[in-house]
C-alpha cells in the first residue's frame, strides 16, 4: 500500500527557498526606502585637491509644505564623502534618482574625470541624470533658495527638460557627457548656470554653455550657444529673433537640420531651417528681408561659437571625429583645428 504524502515535494522546495531568502534579507544590511536619503540634486567641485560635494534632499517631515534640505562636506575620496553625507543626513545616501548634477569649473578642467568615472563605473548615478556647469560655486547653485521657494538644484532639474526649445541650450546627461569625452578631441558641452539677483528676487539663469576638453574651457554666450544647438541638430523648436531698422521680429522654429562636411582646411556647415513667421513680424518689412536677416543672424551665431572654441583649441563641432568617420587622417595634424576655415550656408524656408 502506498504511503499517503504528507507534504508535496514541490511546495516543500518552494517553502525552503522562501525561508532562505527571508533569512538572508534579515541577516544582510538591506536598507528600506524609509532609511535612505533620496538625493534629488547634487553638486561637486574641486577645492585645493579636495572634493566639495553637496546633496539636496526633499524633507519628508513636513506634511503640507514642500521644503528642501542641503548637506555638504569635503574630502579626498568620494566613497568617504558619501559615507559622511549618509551619516549627516541620517540615512544611506541614494543617488540613483538624482535629477541633476551641478559641476564646478575646477572639476571639469582639473580632475581628469576621476569623479565622473567614479559615478559611471560604480553605477551610482543613473545614465539619465542631467549635468550642468556652474559659473559660480556649484554648492551655491544647489543650495540657493529661490524666490518661488524651491531649492536651486531641484529647480534646475525640473527646468532642464524644456531648456533646448525655450533657451537654445542643450541639456546633456551623464551618458552624453561621457560619450563626448571619448570622442576625438574630448570636447564636451554643458549648460552653464549662474545664480542671479534682481532686487529681492533670486533666480537661476541658464543661457550660456560651458565647453571644455578637460583642460581648456570656454563659456559660450547666449547667441553662440544657439549656434551650437543648431549645428549639433538639437534646436528643433523654440524661437529666433532678429532686428531690422531697430524693429524686432520673431519667428518660430518648425524644423531645423544641419550637415557638416570636413575637408583638409575647410568645414562646410549647411543649416536648413523651416520657420514660421506667425510669432511676430515687424511692420513694413517684407519676408525676403526677414529671411536675409535671419540667415545673417544664424551665420553669426555659428561663426561666433566656432571662433570662441577654435581660439581655445576646442573642437566643439567634432570635426576630427567626422574626418575619422569619413576614413580621412588629416585630423591627426597638430594644427588641424587651427587651420580650419568655417563656411556656413543657411537655407531658410518660411511657412
Amino acid at each position, binding site marked *: 500500500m502506498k504511503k499517503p504524502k504528507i507534504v508535496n515535494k514541490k511546495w516543500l*522546495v518552494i517553502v*525552503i*527557498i522562501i525561508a*532562505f*531568502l527571508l533569512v*538572508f534579507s534579515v*541577516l*544582510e*544590511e*538591506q*536598507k528600506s526606502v524609509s532609511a535612505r536619503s533620496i538625493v534629488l540634486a547634487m553638486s561637486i567641485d574641486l577645492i585645493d585637491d579636495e572634493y566639495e560635494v553637496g546633496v539636496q534632499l526633499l524633507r519628508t517631515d513636513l506634511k503640507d509644505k514642500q521644503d528642501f534640505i542641503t548637506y555638504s562636506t569635503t574630502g579626498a575620496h568620494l566613497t568617504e564623502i558619501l559615507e559622511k553625507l549618509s551619516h549627516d543626513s541620517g540615512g544611506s545616501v541614494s543617488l*540613483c*534618482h538624482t535629477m541633476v548634477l551641478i559641476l564646478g569649473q575646477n572639476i571639469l578642467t582639473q580632475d581628469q574625470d576621476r569623479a565622473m*568615472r567614479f559615478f*559611471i*563605473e560604480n*553605477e551610482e548615478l*543613473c*545614465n*539619465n541624470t542631467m549635468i550642468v556647469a556652474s559659473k559660480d560655486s556649484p554648492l551655491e547653485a544647489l543650495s540657493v533658495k529661490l524666490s518661488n521657494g524651491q531649492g536651486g538644484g531641484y529647480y534646475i532639474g525640473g527646468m532642464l*527638460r524644456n531648456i533646448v526649445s525655450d533657451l537654445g541650450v542643450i541639456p546633456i546627461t551623464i*551618458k*552624453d557627457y*561621457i*560619450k563626448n*569625452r*571619448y*570622442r576625438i578631441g574630448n570636447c564636451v558641452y554643458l549648460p552653464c548656470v549662474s545664480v542671479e539677483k534682481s532686487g529681492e528676487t533670486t533666480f537661476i539663469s541658464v543661457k550660456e554653455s560651458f565647453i571644455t576638453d578637460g583642460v581648456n574651457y570656454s563659456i559660450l554666450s547666449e547667441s553662440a550657444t544657439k549656434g551650437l544647438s543648431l549645428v549639433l541638430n538639437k534646436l528643433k523648436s523654440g524661437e529666433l529673433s532678429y532686428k531690422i531698422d531697430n524693429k524686432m521680429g520673431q519667428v518660430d522654429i518648425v524644423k531645423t537640420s544641419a550637415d557638416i562636411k570636413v575637408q583638409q582646411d575647410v568645414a562646410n556647415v549647411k543649416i536648413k531651417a523651416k520657420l514660421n513667421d506667425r510669432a511676430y513680424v515687424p511692420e513694413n518689412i517684407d519676408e525676403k528681408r526677414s529671411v536675409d536677416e535671419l540667415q545673417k543672424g544664424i551665420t553669426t551665431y555659428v561663426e561666433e561659437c566656432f571662433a570662441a572654441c577654435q581660439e581655445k583649441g576646442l573642437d566643439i563641432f*567634432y570635426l576630427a*571625429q*567626422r574626418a*575619422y*568617420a*569619413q*576614413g580621412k587622417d588629416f585630423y591627426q595634424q597638430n594644427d588641424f583645428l587651427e587651420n580650419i576655415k568655417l563656411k556656413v550656408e543657411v537655407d531658410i524656408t518660411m511657412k
Partner: protein
Amino acid sequence: MENIQKNKIYEEQFLLLAFISIVTFKIVMLPQYLVSTASNNSYMVMIFMVAIEIMMLTVVYGVAKNGSILEQDVPKWLKGALAILVFASSIIKCTVRGSEGIAYISTSLYANVSWAFITLALVMACVYIAQKGGKVLARSAQIFFWIIAFAVAFFMIFSQINLDPINLMPFKISGDLAIAGDKYLMWFCDFTPLLFVTVVPSKNHGKKRLAVWTSLAILCVFLFTVGLMLIFICTFGNAGELMGNAFLNVSSLNKIFFMIGSADLPTVLSWLVMYIVKFSLLLFAMSSCAKFFFGDKAIVALICGAIVFCIICFGIGNLNANYQLATSWLRYFIVAIEFAVTATAYIAMRISQSKKQKQQNAQSDNLAQPNANQTDRAQGEI
C-alpha cells in the same frame, strides 16, 4: 523511458531555449568588452559569431530531433566520452556565466548582499529546474517568455535614445576584430546543453508554421545581440568601454525617468528570467552527464549545484577574477569541446541511423524472400 519523457520538448520550445541560450550572456558584459578591444566595428564580431552559433544549433537540432544523445543507439564508450567532455565544458561555463549573472544581480537588485547568499538562492532554484528535466525547463522558458516580451514592449514604448550613427563609422575590417573574437570566445559557442533534450514535432503545427517560428527566432536573436550592440555603440560610442551591463544601460534610457525616476525593473526582471533558464540549462547538461555515470538520482544534481556554488563563491568571488578566468586559455578548451562534441554526436547519430537502416533493409529483404517463394508456389498450383 521515464528520462525520455522528462526531456521531451516541442520544436517551438527548442527554438525558445536556443534563443535564450544564445542571447542571455551576449547582452550584459560582452558589448563592453568587445568595444574596449575592437571599438566601433565590434558589432561585426557579434554578427559573425552569432551566425556560427545559429548554424551549429541547426546541427544540434538535427541530433536532438532523434533523441537525447545519451539515449541514442551509439556505443556506450562514446556516450561516456561525450558526457565527460560536456560535463567539463558545462562546469566551466556554469561558473563563469553564473558569476557574471550574480554580479549583475548584486549590482542591479541588491546593494549589500554578498555573492554567497545570491548564489545559494539561485543555485537552489536552478538545480530544482534542472533536476526536473528538459520538459520543465522548456515550460519555464515559455512562461518566462512573457516577462521578456513585456520588457521589450516597455522598452519600445518608453525608450528615449538619441542614436548617433557617426559612432559606427568608419567601416573597417581590421585585426582588432579577430583579437576581440578570440579573446571573448568564452561568451560564444553554447550548443552542447541542448543535445540532452529530445525534440518532438508540435501536435498541431505544420512545417510552414515551424519555418515562420524559426525565421522569427533567428531575427530576434540578431535583433537582441547585433541590434543591441549597434544601439550600444551609437549611444555610447567608444565610452562603451566604461559601460558594464549593456542591456541595462541601453534600456534605462527612457522617458519614465523624468516622471518617476529610474525605471529599469522590467529589464532587470527580463534578464533575470533569461539567466535562470540559461543557468538551469547548463546545470541540466552537467547533471545529465553526471547521471550517466552515477544514476538518475536527485543527489547527483544537488552535488553538481554544490560544486558550482563552491567554485563561484570561493574560487571566483568577484567580476575581475571571473574576467581573468573567462579570457584565459580555458576558452580554447571550451570551444574545442563544443564543436567537437556537436560534430561527433551528429556523425555518431548518422552512423547509427544508417546501421539501423541497413538492418531494417536486411530484415525486410528476409521477410520479402519467403513471400516470393510462396507466390511462386501458389502460381504453380494454379
